[in-house]
């Protein structure tokens, strides 16, 4: 049936298909069974055979959002997911529900109703005051098994990525990490989960066809926060669990906050980053001042971190954090691919660099070829004027 059109060769992300005698041949040592070629083939010449099993999906309904809290404060990523979750729930014509675990967090349920939750599942216990893998994953698995959501979303945070990965194994379902796009295939009623891979070089859309719930962790700052409607009300479902569900093998001894600024990188709408061009640890002062003025967080390139000018927790890039703020201001950063991987999905990128050939200018919305020690303080001064600070 192969017509030798070569479409499959082009779409294969693993270079496993080649043309021999005008027919496509798959190299099975390279093939990862991703199915991209099956989708691309216009002649149904490629097939991916899987076991046929019966699954009961009918009992699973509603869209759930795991609402992460720290120090009893619901994190903004939860509000973003309620915004996105509402869209999915409307398409599926089902309820949007929030899951809230913590101690003394009952009052926060109101804020979740205001942001669109029809039901809030609350588990309030001293054992859940801080995030710990064991009790959180056991409680969430219990809730899912009892109430059977169709979809579960969580922030792709250090908590979300540790927790949901455990839950996915416990309840035997699929999980897609760090999604940047979600949609519903209306015909099949499936969650379409789109995420970057290969350092953002390709995007993949992933489904969980047979298992429920369909679970995804979602990147910060990609989805728009739910609009607050003060009059909105919902149903609070409070659950209690025994000690064997709430017990933990690990013990959280202490929490140390070391980010100097109040805004953390993943949450920040604005990030001002410094690189090799900053030259010395004390020079990060001008980066910090600009960040402080415009309410941003301070980031850094790997070279600035490796030189010990600023702690690793500020590093943006492949071996640091992936961020996507509204504004990313790169000061004295040349823009090595490893750095670009971590920030190129930012909405607006400003690059300030002496070298006109620096690769950072290839991704910058606005480029300034100049001395950061002149440009950055001038920017700070101007912003202070405008913002009345």
């Amino acid at each position, binding site marked *: 049936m192969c017509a030798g059109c070569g479409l499959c060769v*082009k*779409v294969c*992300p693993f*270079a496993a298909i080649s043309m021999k005698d005008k027919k496509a041949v798959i190299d*099975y040592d390279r093939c990862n*069974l*991703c*199915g*991209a070629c099956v*989708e691309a083939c216009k002649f149904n010449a490629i097939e991916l055979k899987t*076991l046929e099993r019966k699954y009961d999906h009918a009992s699973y309904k509603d869209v759930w959002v795991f609402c992460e809290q720290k120090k009893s404060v619901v994190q903004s990523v939860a509000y973003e997911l309620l915004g996105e979750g509402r869209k999915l729930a409307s398409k599926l014509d089902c309820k949007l529900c929030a899951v809230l675990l913590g101690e003394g967090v009952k009052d926060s349920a109101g804020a979740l109703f205001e942001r669109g939750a029809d039901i809030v599942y609350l588990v309030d216990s001293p054992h859940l005051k801080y995030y710990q*893998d064991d009790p959180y994953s056991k409680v969430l698995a219990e809730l899912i098994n009892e109430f059977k959501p169709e979809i579960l979303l969580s922030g792709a945070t*250090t908590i979300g*990525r*540790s927790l949901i990965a*455990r839950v*996915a*194994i*416990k309840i*035997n379902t*699929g*999980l897609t*990490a760090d999604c940047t796009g979600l949609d519903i295939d209306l015909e099949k009623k499936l969650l379409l989960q789109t995420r*970057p*891979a*290969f*350092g953002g*070089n*390709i*995007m993949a*859309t*992933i489904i969980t066809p047979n*298992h429920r719930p369909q679970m995804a962790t979602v990147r910060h700052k990609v989805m728009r926060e739910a609009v607050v409607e003060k009059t909105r009300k919902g149903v609070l479902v409070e659950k209690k669990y025994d000690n064997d569900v709430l017990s933990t*093998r*690990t*013990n959280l*001894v*202490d*929490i*140390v906050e*070391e*980010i100097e600024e109040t805004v953390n*990188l993943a*949450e920040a709408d604005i990030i001002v980053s410094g690189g090799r061009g900053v030259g010395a640890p004390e020079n990060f002062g001008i980066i910090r001042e600009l960040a402080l003025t415009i309410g941003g967080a301070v980031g850094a390139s790997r070279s600035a971190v490796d030189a010990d000018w600023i702690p690793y927790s500020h590093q943006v890039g*492949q071996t640091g954090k992936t961020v996507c703020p*509204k*504004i990313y201001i790169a000061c004295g950063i040349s823009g090595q691919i490893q750095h670009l*991987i971590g920030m*190129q999905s930012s909405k607006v990128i400003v690059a300030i660099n002496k070298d*006109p050939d620096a690769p950072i200018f*290839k991704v*910058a*919305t*606005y*480029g300034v*070829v100049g001395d950061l020690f002149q440009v950055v303080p*001038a*920017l700070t001064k*101007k*912003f202070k004027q405008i913002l009345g600070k």
Partner: protein
Amino acid sequence: MNIVVCIKQVPNTTQVRINPETNTLIREGVESIINPFDMYAIEEGVRLREKLGGKVTVVSMGPPQAEGALREAISMGCDEGVLVTDRAFAGSDTWATSYVLSQAVKKIGDFNIVLCGKQASDGDTAQVGPGISTHLDIPQVTYVKKIETIDEKKARVERMTEEGFEIIETPVPCLLTVVKEINEPRLPSLKGKMRAKKTEIKKMTAEDLNCDFDKIGLDGSPTRVVKIFTPAPRRGGEILTGEISEIVDKLTRELRSEF
């Protein structure tokens, strides 16, 4: 202290380029490397052994050529290498992969610590480490930036968070995923390279690991990739020129609308 380090061979994503005409990945000439985050796991394993004695076994699931990654890990000081390879594993997602690796860790047996990098640089999921610990039903600590103390009963580690770090005590055996800050990986020594050449890499198949065939490969994977595409490449915008005051005026005006 017996340590198992799980590693993955990945394409060097920083070398991956897009063919502008076909808008597809160019994989020719892209070298295979050990996932950068796994280098920290290897180094930490070797350091623990140097301090406490015991053995470091490095394990990887992948095609036959992943043997190269295991030899590199041995050249850095790991004692033994196990390659988990079988056509039946093809198409495994993070669920199935973590199941297979947990079976491998069980087969290796007699371990105190399992170490993984925080995530792989190609898939970036960070799901396989927690998946392995859940399959093994052992405690986990993710994003570990320092092992403060460790013995055969318990460990005290620092876990990186968005705001700083947590100090966590965990019983041993346990699984830790590590971040870059934990150490600086060494370069292989000449002696290490010689040893890596001579060391026999054990190969294990799905059958060797007593895998349940319903839990591996495509059939054992709850997720499916339905589409792969290349995002429109980001293009450079405007280069602002002129006096600093003009540049600053323009920039503040443009940025202000984004606040």
